[in-house]
């Protein structure tokens, strides 16, 4: 079966795109899928660091596109998961080194060779973003429960609709149940109310995410972390499994709300 190509994007920077790509890739690979992730943030590469593969980079995506190496040579195999690969971004070029049609050709070559291609999009809605969504079958929009991030997500969803990439599915990242309960943070409900798209996961705020990112071992490896659990669940949903949403506030309220909202579609 040809691979599913999934782009993770957000509009706003710093909401967790790269972290999400790394963790979903790990989650999918733990489930036994063959996954290739592509760092689309040319000039500001990060995904290699979070996956802990920085020191193995020889060739990057621009080398492939400009014909300096074969695709296979730029695919770096993960340390722990033999079915997980990274195609890193070039650090010394910029977004214009790649065009949407370059991406389409690259992905076409990958499609028959793996189960999932995950593309990490740069922040913004310019060239890099257009590159990242060019070949996507499905787009995941990630946001934080903050007014500014939600506003940018709304803009991105609008562009996706205009480009015929569908409304996408939503990941709400870094939700803090205590703040929500005290009405100091937007709830998942509030965010969905505005964006009106399918929700595919809610990831709670968890300091282990930062710790593990710095170590180069994504939190999805950590069986005790709630954020890790949330990412693994999203990975399962991407594979088509029905997984209930995590009960984040221990009362069952959120889960029921989410169920109601996602059922609404």
């Amino acid at each position, binding site marked *: 079966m040809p691979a599913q190509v999934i782009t993770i994007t957000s509009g706003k920077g710093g909401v967790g795109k790269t972290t999400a790509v790394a963790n979903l890739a790990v989650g999918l690979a733990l489930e036994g899928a063959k996954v290739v992730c592509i760092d689309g943030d040319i000039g500001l590469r990060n995904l290699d660091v979070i996956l802990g593969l920085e020191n193995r980079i020889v060739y990057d995506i621009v080398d492939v596109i*400009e014909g300096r190496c074969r695709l296979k040579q730029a695919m770096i195999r993960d340390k722990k998961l033999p079915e997980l690969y990274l195609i890193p971004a070039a650090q010394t*070029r*910029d*977004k*214009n*080194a790649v*065009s*949407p*049609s*370059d991406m389409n050709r690259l992905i076409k070559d990958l499609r028959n060779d793996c189960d999932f291609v995950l593309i990490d999009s740069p922040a913004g809605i310019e*060239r890099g973003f257009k590159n990242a969504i060019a070949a996507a079958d499905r787009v995941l929009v990630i946001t934080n429960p903050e*007014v500014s991030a939600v*506003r*940018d997500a*709304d*803009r991105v*969803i*609008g*562009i996706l*609709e*205009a*480009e015929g990439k569908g409304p996408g599915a939503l990941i709400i990242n870094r939700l803090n149940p205590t703040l929500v309960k005290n009405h100091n943070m937007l709830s998942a409900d509030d965010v969905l109310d*505005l964006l*009106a798209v399918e929700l595919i996961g809610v990831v709670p705020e968890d300091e282990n995410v930062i710790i593990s990112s710095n170590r180069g071992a994504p939190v999805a490896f950590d069986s005790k972390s709630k954020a890790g659990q949330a990412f693994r669940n999203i990975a399962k949903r991407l594979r088509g499994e029905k997984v209930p949403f995590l009960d984040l506030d221990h009362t069952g309220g959120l889960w029921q709300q989410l169920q109601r909202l996602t059922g609404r579609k």
Partner: protein
Amino acid sequence: MSETNSLIQIKGLRDGLLVSLDDAPWEEQRVALLTQVDSQQAFFQGARLALDVASQVLHVNELVELRDQLSERGISLWAVISESPTTEKTAQLLGLATRISKPRPEENRHFSVENLGEETALFLSRTLRSGTRIEFAGHVVVLGDVNPGAEIVAEGNVIIWGRLRGMVHAGAKGNRNAIICALDLSPTQLRIAEEVSAILKPRENPEPEMARINKDGKLQAELWSPG
């Protein structure tokens, strides 16, 4: 706006600049273009550039080089127009447009209608998301929400059958009798003619409201009552 020097012509288009080159050697033209760009940085900064290369035959490395050099200067090359099929193919390979007549996907739409009668309205059956701007020389009716960051500018009335959280300007050409209605009127800002109002706290249980300019000349919203 028009600039000439010996080799290149620059013309302002509706959505960017059109640079026309002639058949002089490519290297000369490239240098001439970059020199021109460097001498007028403020003018070119952030520009969208279409390039008409006449019958030049260009290959990938040449176009890539120019594209990168332009991009270093904050200019995005989006189209290359050529009489040469080789160059056209190269441009397509790089994901560049080869025609400029085709409008790029527009989010900011300006609708104009000829012979506008008093009852002309634009009906939109979708949610207007952040970044969308609708301008219309009549009434606007939206069946859906208007999200924060979306804008509607209408010369007539604006009716939102949904939640209004963005910006709406009714009576934009000065009609002070224009009204704005919404099922949930919680905009970031409302304007009618020259009056501006930053409204209101969102309510727990929203009810349909209508905003208009009252007798004292103030923009005011009140609950909508039939009849």
